[in-house]
């Protein structure tokens, strides 16, 4: 507890005989304390002071009130609270007395002087600078340093302005580290290692100063190319995307045509295989048919041969339009409007109209035959006559 603190506290309370505690409890004790104080003062200044105060009781009363108020104000100033987050350094006559832990305390200005600071809270220093890298490029680094006070005594007594010293040391350490790194590493994968190295350096610098500061965490917030060349750097990123894109396009082209080709190849093979099996099967079929027929033919060659011939001729001629030309001699010019007949036929069929019915065919054939007959009569007359 604060009252039990070792050091000057207990001693210093003695002259007031627990007046401090009384001040907290209420006026009666305080009055008593003041009376004691007054007595002491009277004692110090001897008879003269006593004479002055006894000469008029009114002015003595006034003096008491003034002293009372002054004392209360003094106590009000002298009592202080050190928060859990804080520590205080007390100097007595300029000499280091103690570092005070959290609690309620009292010190005695102007004999004592007190420096109270928050020591647990991390403070932050942010900086953003352009700096040179090892390969003579310029990068922009934004960094934040978190620090707190590790040793308040050192913080208060050793360095003129510990925080500005920290800032200068940070800049120096950061530039040193960036100056020893290549731009690529600063901008990309080297950032984490950079923070560690800056932290190490910074701590060693400020330890050298004895500033009592502890560097907590260093964050490299961002490293980027300077604004002046940002566009070019962005273009590199775009180029990477472009590369990816053109590769993807090519890959999709490949993905499209190769399987199709595979399918086409398979189709060619299947067709060929189909053909192979087809021709073999047909050959077997035809060969078998021929062999079977041959077996019968050998038994009755003449009849079979004649029958086959007639069957075929019947079939062939039955389907065709027939023109029977009885021409003797080879050099007779015969004119048949064959092209016309053909044309008539094709125009009818290709026109999508109904095919010629057998009746029509017959009529047509008759007409042709008639035509031929009349013609042959005229054209072959000479031939006939010659005959």
């Amino acid at each position: 507890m604060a009252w039990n603190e070792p050091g000057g506290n207990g001693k210093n309370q003695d002259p007031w005989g627990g007046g401090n505690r009384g001040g907290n409890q209420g006026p009666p004790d305080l009055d008593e304390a003041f009376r004691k104080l007054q007595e002491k003062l009277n004692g110090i200044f001897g008879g003269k002071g006593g004479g002055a105060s006894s000469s008029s009781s009114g002015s003595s009363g006034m003096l008491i009130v003034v002293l009372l108020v002054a004392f209360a104000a003094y106590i009000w100033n002298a009592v202080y609270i050190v928060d859990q987050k804080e520590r205080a350094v007390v100097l007595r006559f300029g000499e280091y007395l103690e570092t005070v832990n959290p609690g309620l305390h009292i010190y005695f200005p102007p004999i004592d002087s007190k420096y109270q600071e928050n020591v647990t809270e991390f403070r932050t220093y942010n900086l953003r600078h352009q700096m040179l890298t090892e390969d003579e490029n310029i990068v922009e680094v934004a960094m934040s340093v978190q620090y707190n006070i590790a040793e308040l005594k050192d913080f208060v007594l050793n360095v003129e302005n510990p925080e500005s010293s920290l800032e200068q040391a940070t800049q120096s350490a950061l530039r040193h580290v960036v100056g020893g790194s290549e731009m690529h590493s600063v901008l990309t994968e080297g950032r984490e290692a950079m923070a560690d190295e800056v932290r190490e350096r910074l701590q060693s610098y400020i330890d050298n100063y004895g500033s009592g500061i502890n560097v907590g965490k260093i964050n490299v917030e961002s490293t980027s190319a300077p604004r002046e060349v940002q566009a070019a750097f962005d273009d590199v990123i775009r180029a990477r995307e472009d590369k990816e894109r053109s590769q993807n396009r090519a890959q999709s082209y490949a993905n499209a045509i190769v399987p199709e080709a595979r399918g086409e190849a398979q189709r060619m093979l299947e067709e060929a295989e189909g053909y192979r099996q087809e021709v073999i099967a047909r050959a077997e079929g035809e060969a078998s048919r021929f062999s079977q027929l041959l077996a019968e033919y050998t038994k009755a060659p003449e009849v079979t041969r004649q029958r086959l011939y007639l069957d075929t001729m019947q079939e062939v001629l039955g389907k065709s339009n027939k023109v029977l030309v009885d021409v003797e001699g080879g050099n007779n010019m015969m004119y048949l409007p064959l092209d016309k007949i053909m044309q008539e036929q094709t125009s009818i069929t290709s026109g999508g109209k109904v095919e010629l019915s057998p009746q029509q065919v017959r009529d047509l054939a008759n007409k042709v035959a008639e035509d031929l007959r009349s013609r042959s009569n005229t054209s072959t007359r000479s031939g006939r006559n010659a005959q």
Partner: protein
Amino acid sequence: MSPKSMLGVILLAAVVLLGLESLYVVSERERAVVLRFGELIKPNVQPGLHIKAPFIDKVRIFDGRLLTLDSSPERFLTQEKKALIIDSFVKWRIDNVETFYTATSGDIRRANQLLSQRVESRLRNIVGSKTLQEVVSGERDQLMEFITNNLNGIARQELGVAVADVRIKGIDLPPQVSDSVFERMATERDKEAQEIRSQGNEQAEVIRADADRQKRVLLAEAFRDAEKARGDGDAKAAAIYAKAYNADAEFFSFYRSLQAYKETFRKQGDIMVLDPDSDFFHYLKQSGAK
């Protein structure tokens, strides 16, 4: 107030004044000297409460903490005559109070000025003997240590000052040089971007060409295998035909011809111009046997 009490007050004031004049406090944060009629009688007063001869002795108190000399950025030339703007700072503290007082008459600004001239000349010498590369990235630690030690000896002796640290806070290129650095950086990036794009196109072309080749090969191989299969089929069929037809070649040609006639005149409407003398019409002309 009676004259007696007036006298009392005056006496009290005199005692207080005397007390204040004969007592002084030196803090842990401070260094002090005591002068008697300008003569230094106490060169290094320890922290605490002290007594001096009132009105005769004078106390001079200085800041005893670590002080900073933050000089303004200066232009330096490196060995290869490249300009650099270097911003440095020096951390120092009063070491020998007596020397410090005599050298600077206790003026911190004066001390900073003297120190900064010495630092600058050393820095200038050392930067002038190094290349830009060495200054920026090289052994900066050794460089700084060298300057610190070098400076420390003289500063201690001449100024009564201990130099704790000399550091370069910033190294920058002059603005016109930075511009050309930026231009170079930009062109380097352009180069890189171009290379990446072209690599992309290259690989895309490779992928496409590979795909085209695969397609060609696949189709050609398929064609080869297909033709083989067809040839195989044809050969086997031919063998089968030959085996069957060889049994009676004459009958085969007769039979096959008949089939061919059928096939040839399969279409309706073909016109046949026939000679009535052909075999087929043998019986058409004469019913009796020949």
